[in-house]
């Protein structure tokens, strides 16, 4: 079953084209990894899917419903999609547990104590139950990012978008976040992941898409795309990445 379907999506910022006739399907329980240079449109695609940006042309369907239709209420759509950002974007004036329970309490009308219990259970699963009462600035980057993932998961979204979630982390903290994402894959979460971590992409991806100038230039299984890329630009990109 197809959860997400992007068809001929176009997006330009002040005349510069960021997404150019881009199409992408994501099946239920599927994990699609987007790779590509900075500015290739990975983040913009994720922001468009979450309706944080409006597309200029084309359609995006979630469970068969066209969410780019202007009559659709974006707040309702976003309740079904979770997104995690590169810079965590936790709310600094709220404790960890309040960050997590905000949406259940305010959006889904869950009783505060029910929301709290569920949040604590999820925090426990990612090993952060003891940090529930802390403010985000007392946590390490890896811990903050795991809280951000829990915050996105607490609504049990149909689709989880991860936007370079390890790029702002110290190298020794990357592992704990990537392990959590691997767990999520094991539980069958449908995900679209933008990342620069190629070895991680190889491990979790069902399909890898190489974005170049707002287009999916090449896509395939991780073995095919990393082992035997067809396009010269893909080969070039992978060579440049592996040298770092």
């Amino acid at each position: 079953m197809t959860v997400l379907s992007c068809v001929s999506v176009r997006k330009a910022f002040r005349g510069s084209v960021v997404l150019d006739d881009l199409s992408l399907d994501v099946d239920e329980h599927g994990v699609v990894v987007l790779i590509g240079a900075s500015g290739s449109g990975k983040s913009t695609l994720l922001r468009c899917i979450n309706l944080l940006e409006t597309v200029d042309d084309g359609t995006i369907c979630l469970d068969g419903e066209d969410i780019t239709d202007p009559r659709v209420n974006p707040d309702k759509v976003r309740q079904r999609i979770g997104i995690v950002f590169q810079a965590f974007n936790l709310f600094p004036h709220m404790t960890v547990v309040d960050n997590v329970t905000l949406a259940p309490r305010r959006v889904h009308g869950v009783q505060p104590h029910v929301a709290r219990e569920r949040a604590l259970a999820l925090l426990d699963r990612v090993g952060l139950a003891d940090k529930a009462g802390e403010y985000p600035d007392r946590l390490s980057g890896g811990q903050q990012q795991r809280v951000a993932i829990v915050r996105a998961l607490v609504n049990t979204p149909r689709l989880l978008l991860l936007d370079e979630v390890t790029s702002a982390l110290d190298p020794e903290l990357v592992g704990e976040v990537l392990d959590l994402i691997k767990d999520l894959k094991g539980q069958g979460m449908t995900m679209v992941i933008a990342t620069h971590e190629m070895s991680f992409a190889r491990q979790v991806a069902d399909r890898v898409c190489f974005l170049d100038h707002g287009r999916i230039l090449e896509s395939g299984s991780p073995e095919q795309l990393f082992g035997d890329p067809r396009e010269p630009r893909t080969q070039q990109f992978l060579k440049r990445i592996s040298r770092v």
Partner: protein
Amino acid sequence: MAFRRRQTVRSVLVAAASTFVVGIVFYLVITSSPGWQEVRSTFLDWHVARSSVRPILKGLWLNFRLLVFCAVGAVALGLFIATLRTLRPAVYFPLRALATSYTYIFRGAPLIIVIYVVALGAPGLRLQGTPSTLVLGGIALVITYAGYIAEVFRAGIESIHPSQWAASRSLGLTYRQTLRHIVLPQAVRRVAPPLLNDLVALQKDVGLISLVGPVDAIRAAQINVSETYNFTPYILAGAFFVLLAIPLIAVTDWVTLRAARRQNAEAGR
């Protein structure tokens, strides 16, 4: 440790001694000046002070009540106007334009003229249920100060990074919920020092309603001055104002210090 403590004790003693010496010098220079006797009798007359303290305190009580009501009103109206000014969707352009012109007009218009127009102009309409000059004067103060306070709040709202909006909206919260639960709590904390500063200024300006009738502390002092031909009541009223302002100024300093510490802590990470 003991050395440190000795150093602290020493610096406190030096500070006390130098303050004492400076104080003595001031005292001697002023009291030995040729006009000191006349100045003392016209500005620091004990009997005049005793007879004028009651009406001045009565006026000060009016200042205080007016301050509380005007502060609450101005903060509420200012917050509302700031919210209108930060609405992004194109449909709200008229509201945004209205709020923007409001802050331009009332930051520009002299308070005294606003008080005259509202407190003396509104009753001229002879509408049923026009409130007293006191209330109208208070409304003029609220209208004017809301212009300044709106800009303080706007600065706070715009200082919150767009990623906070994105994070909140992505969770399904609406624009209003995001403003209410995410943006305003952070913005208000950030602008608390300048906000309190405006309230200290308001504390002094509430007395201006005496221009249209009500007797505040300074007006009461003025009446006493004209009865006794002695300026002591002004000194007394001034001293009361300073006393009234000290708690608010102290709170402002404390909040500013705390905000600065927090920002340093953030930057240190």
